[in-house]
């Protein structure tokens, strides 16, 4: 009886949290997306219906933003996920020399303010910057991050991976540490080592937790507006502009809150679909 009351209380708290901090803002966002709300009519916006959505999907730039968002997810998420997994396995092995230092170094990108970091990285890769000169000597050509579309994309992706890999590592370490030692020892007694131990024993046990890691990396990549603005400013042109950056520009720079909200709703739907797909996939397996 007491357990049931506790469970219901927990559920009530979760639902209240969802309603207040997620549900209401999401409904407001949807409502704003149907209006022409801007800074001059904050209190009395005009209802436009689906005009913002029609404008949005008919825009060439929006289509580009959407494609680049997917491109970023397609490259950044698997690399980050794999890096997180590899780092976590190393750090979890228990025999790593300099483990504390390695852990600290790994967490460093996560705790460094992105804008400050971006400024220094941009300096290093800028024309005449130390890395730029070094790369030119090693590769024979410079990595042009401000004027070359491919260069700027590579530069951005490297940095996004670098920023999100520590989070992936930490979550993966926590997943690995949940595997009972007795299970691993029993598997070893049965002759399972290395890749086979990981593949047949550990992976099935942490599969669901890894799914959470994957969802978090996808969310981070889709919503990485601050990092993109700091590293490339969405440029050159709008080559590295994702939907989140576009939403930021429309909402915070131009005050087209209605239009920005319609992009926000679209992003919400994408994130929801991706999350649902992953959950369904896990359930099937």
């Amino acid at each position: 009886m007491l357990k049931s009351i506790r469970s219901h209380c927990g559920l009530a708290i979760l639902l209240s949290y969802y309603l207040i901090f997620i549900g209401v803002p999401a409904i407001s966002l949807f409502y704003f997306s149907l209006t022409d709300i801007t800074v001059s009519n904050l209190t009395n916006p005009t209802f436009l219906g689906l005009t913002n959505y029609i404008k949005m999907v008919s825009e060439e730039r929006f289509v580009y933003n959407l494609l680049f968002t997917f491109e970023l997810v397609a490259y950044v998420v698997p690399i980050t996920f794999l890096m997180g997994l590899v780092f976590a396995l190393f750090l979890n092995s228990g025999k790593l020399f300099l483990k504390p230092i390695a852990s600290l170094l790994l967490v460093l990108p996560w705790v460094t303010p992105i804008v400050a970091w971006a400024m220094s990285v941009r300096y290093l890769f800028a024309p005449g910057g130390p890395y730029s000169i070094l790369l030119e000597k090693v590769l024979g050509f410079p990595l042009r991050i401000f004027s070359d579309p491919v260069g700027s994309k590579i530069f951005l992706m490297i940095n996004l991976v670098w920023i999100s890999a520590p989070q992936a590592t930490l979550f993966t370490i926590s997943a690995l540490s949940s595997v009972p030692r007795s299970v691993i020892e029993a598997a070893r007694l049965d002759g399972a080592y290395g890749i086979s131990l990981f593949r047949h024993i550990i992976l099935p046990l942490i599969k669901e937790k890894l799914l959470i890691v994957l969802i978090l990396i996808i969310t981070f990549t889709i919503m990485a507006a601050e990092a993109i603005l700091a590293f490339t400013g969405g440029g050159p042109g709008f080559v590295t502009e994702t939907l989140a950056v576009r939403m930021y520009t429309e909402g915070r720079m131009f005050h087209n809150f209605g239009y920005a909200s319609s992009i926000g709703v679209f992003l919400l739907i994408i994130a929801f679909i991706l999350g649902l797909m992953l959950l369904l996939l896990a359930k099937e397996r």
Partner: protein
Amino acid sequence: MARKGLLRKQKLSRRQALSTAGKIAIGVIASGIVAGVAGYYAGGGGAPLKTTTIKEKETVTVTKTVTQTVSGPTVTISPTTTATSVSTTPTATIPTKVELKFAHFYDPALGGPFKVNHDYLLKVYKGFAEEFPNISIKETFYPWDQLDDKMMVAKKVGIPIDLCMASPQVWLKHREVGTFKDLTPYLKTLPKSLIDSIMWNPSWRFKATYPEGIPMNLHVSILVWRRDLFEEAGLDPDVGPSNIDDLIEFAKKTTKPEKGQYGVAMTLGDKIQNFQLVFVPFVWGYGGEIVDEEGKAVFADSPEAVEAVKEINDLFNKYKVASKEESFIPDATEVWKRFLEGKHAINLSYFTGLLAWYESEGMWKGIAPPTEHPVYLKARIGPWPLPTGYGWGHGGWHLCIHANSKHPDEAWEFIKYWIRPEVIADYPDMGIPAHRDLWNKPVYQTEPYRIMFQQAEKVKPLPTSKFYYELCEQTKYMFYEIIIEGKPVKETMKKYQDTFNRKYYG
């Protein structure tokens, strides 16, 4: 036994239910993060960065008589002005201590020009506090490119601000929002000579910002070149390009890609300065048009504007005297810094607001602040070398009383104090004095200021549009497609003109 089995079944299903609930919760949280961030970005303004309070300890009730005596050859503001005559309501008797909230962007923590200007402001506050001990100033710093937005949002959400600085370019939007108080009743109390002196300023001359903001400075586009790089290339370091052919020739001679050195550089990657410091002065320099009276883009229909953009493109792709990588850096400040590092011989995105900074970096001496004996060291300034000679210009930053101000009379006292010719004369961000009468002072009778004044005579205020920043963004993408992707000039200009007009003007 059967009951036990049922219980186990129930337990199992509860576990399953919890697992499913957990998965849903993860999905919900992930979506929630997206919704929260989306709401944040799409929604209102964030908190100000930092605040500092400069306060006087004394709290007294005073009846103040303000006496303004102006030194200088031609300016004389009425010898005695009582504070009661300045505003519609008496302000001379201020019964209680008043704190004015002043929003600006001179954050000393940012160093460089910001600190130099903040040091000057501290002196202004000190002088003001001596005359008005019961009015204190509380500063709030915002990034310069967010200040206007924050002021508009503050108006709408009721954040109390008394004084603020604002940009004339976005005035149409400010008017729509009603960000500032109408200064007409206050302006009526100012001496005509002072009004005439300020009225010359392009922003007021074209009635762009009158009567809500007082122009505090005058920024115009000028040319700046490295004397040392000219000398190295066998050019006379004191003779700059006087027309576009000279510009190309000088740029070719000073371009040395193997050393990472280029003849010219522009701020084409910056979301605002690509427009203000490159597109506008080039188009006007060729006699073209940018927007019509409504604010709609017309640049693609102007043959001169198309010619100007072709010329910019040629500097990169035909004459190869500019580096795409250097000029498409997203932050204008970094392009200006590269000039200081000696990587560009001629800076085609320079304006008078940067004089003090370049002086502090050893480019010249005695220009900002002005002295009677300026000396050019590593760099030199010259007039804008395009056919019509027109560059851009505007009243720089304007000082305004925010619509939410609870102490407009006291705020006006501060404005009146700051615009006194002897107080504003030392304003480092001034570029060229906002008051034309100050131009007669001996420190301005020098060669650099003669060039700048001649340039100032030819300026037009920056184009005003309700969608100013949106227009700036369009030209940034336009330049990218033309210069980097190699798309045809006229068609690309037309594409971006139509995109802008369709989106913002139906």
